[in-house]
């Protein structure tokens, strides 16, 4: 078998939503190349909803040593699965967990994981992966080389989960036995935890005013706070603002913070690094205010103002007040 293999992610029976996006990508790649498509579950034998997706095979890689994630355990187990099933392409969701072990796994095959892929094309029968460079300012076509298998991870939101094709009848799960040695698992993980309960629920906000590096210093935060106030909006921020302690962590939007989809998202002085975009690109209307007309935030914006936020925001506050008067 030399098809496309999708590695899924779940924890305690709860699916990572990007697993479905990766299934959709794998199905599409396999269809384009006329190859069979399979998926693997790790640390469980229960395929759950996966059995209802159109797949030629589902492999279960299960072992007591895979019940909690370790890079060593996952790498050894998936190396054995891949050597046994011999896929040509191996796709992963580009999650934090995948970032932790997939590069190591690819190295075992003298390969390079083409990470954070946003799409692919078939050029003269070969697969070309599309990924972003320079924090989204440029795109690149990347081609594989060396011997298969070829490895790629799929960016959040690049493929739609609801495009995953359902199966006509449930797919049987094939257990793939692996041999793991507890002594080779070098790290010892403690249970995951959350730092504090979230008091701010940005997910239910109708309008969000979000601030980024462009605000320059903490003393300038009240400028955007005022805009949020007159609009009746929640105030949010990109990661650097929360890292600096200028706004609390619970107001952070992005891959390490909250995912929001308000009616209006106003990004002030936010360049639009991918880690931020994945948290807000589902907003109905996106407004970007930034001095750099090449900032990636303008790629996703419906309305843009290229200008100095220290001039634009006070003017905007006045205009909103007038409109509401």
């Amino acid at each position, binding site marked *: 078998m030399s098809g496309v293999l999708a590695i899924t992610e779940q924890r305690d029976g709860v699916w990572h939503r990007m697993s479905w996006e990766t299934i959709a990508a794998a199905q599409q790649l396999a269809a384009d190349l006329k190859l069979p498509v399979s998926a693997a579950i790790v640390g469980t034998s229960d395929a759950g909803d996966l059995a209802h997706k159109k797949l030629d095979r589902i492999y279960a890689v299960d072992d007591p040593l895979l019940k909690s994630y370790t*890079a060593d355990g996952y790498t050894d187990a998936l190396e054995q699965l891949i050597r046994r099933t011999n896929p040509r392409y191996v796709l992963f969701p580009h*999650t*934090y*967990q995948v*970032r*932790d072990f*997939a*590069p*190591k796994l*690819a*190295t*075992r095959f*003298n*390969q*390079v*994981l083409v*990470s*954070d892929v946003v799409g692919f094309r078939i050029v003269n029968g070969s697969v070309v992966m599309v990924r*972003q*460079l*320079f*924090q*989204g300012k*440029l*795109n*690149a*076509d*990347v081609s594989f*080389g060396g011997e298969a298998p070829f490895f790629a991870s799929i960016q959040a939101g690049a493929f739609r989960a609801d495009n995953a094709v359902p199966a006509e009848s449930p797919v049987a799960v094939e257990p793939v036995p692996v041999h793991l040695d507890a002594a080779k698992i*070098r790290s010892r*993980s*403690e*249970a*995951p*935890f959350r730092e504090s309960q979230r008091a701010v629920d940005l997910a239910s906000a109708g*309008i969000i005013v979000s601030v980024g590096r462009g605000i320059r210093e903490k003393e300038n935060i009240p400028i955007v706070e005022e805009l949020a106030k007159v*609009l009746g909006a929640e105030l949010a921020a990109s990661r650097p603002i929360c890292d*600096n302690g200028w706004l609390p*962590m619970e107001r952070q939007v992005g*891959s*390490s913070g909250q995912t929001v989809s308000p009616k209006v998202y106003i990004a002030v002085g936010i360049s639009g690094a*991918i880690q931020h975009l994945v948290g807000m690109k589902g907003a109905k*209307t996106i407004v*970007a205010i930034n001095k*750099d007309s090449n900032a*990636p935030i*303008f*790629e996703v914006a*419906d*309305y843009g*103002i*290229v*200008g*100095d936020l220290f*001039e*634009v925001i006070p*003017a905007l506050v*006045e*205009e909103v007040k007038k409109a*509401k008067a």
Partner: protein
Amino acid sequence: MKIIVAIKQVPARDSQLRIDSKGKWIQTSDLAFEINEPDAYALEAALQLKEKNGGEVVALCAGPASAGQTIREALAKGADRALHIEEDNLDTLDTLGIARLLAKAATAESPDLVLTGLQSEDLGYGQTGVVVAELLGMPHATIVMEVERKDSSVRVKRELENGWFQYVELPLPAVLTIQSGISKLRYATLMGIKKAKTKEVKRLTAAGLGVPLQATIAIDRVYPPEKSKQTQILDGSPKEAAAKLVEKLKFEVRAI
């Protein structure tokens, strides 16, 4: 404890990028460069570990001669010495190719810890540290927020997704990729800048290390991203642009 920090020099954050004539990379001749920001946090974490536990911090950088400026800055901030793998054409190399160079140079130092940033701001593969760990046969942890030294191990706090964290303990030697923004970056002092001039920078080459400059994957083409949305740019003075935006928000989006 001996800590190696792998750092990379990348185009300065606000650079206007132009695609080169072959369409496979950017024009680098007229750009300003700086340390890859995530690596600056790795350097900071290394310096703090040294302050607490003693030992030595060695900066390791693969790049052209001009990367010497970034290396000097690391020395000025407090790194004790540096290894510079000086090669001009590393832009066409991939993660595995670079990691082979870094791992070979690191092996000779027998470090207790190898730190690096979690990703680069130019290529953004986010995997050099993990691949170096595999090549060195060391355990690793990624997206690390805190590092606590124990007798023959480190206990680190890793960031998971959606506000979750986890403590992981790893035997030494180990490789850690450090999350950005976890501490305040120090500035080089005048004394530090002066001292940096006398610190050792050992120059290495790929040939000297016996590592071929060989890429597995290749960038075929670099191009501006296709826009997923049609953006209406609202122009004019700040007051005019603001008035136009309010009109859109009121009458088209109906949010005011």
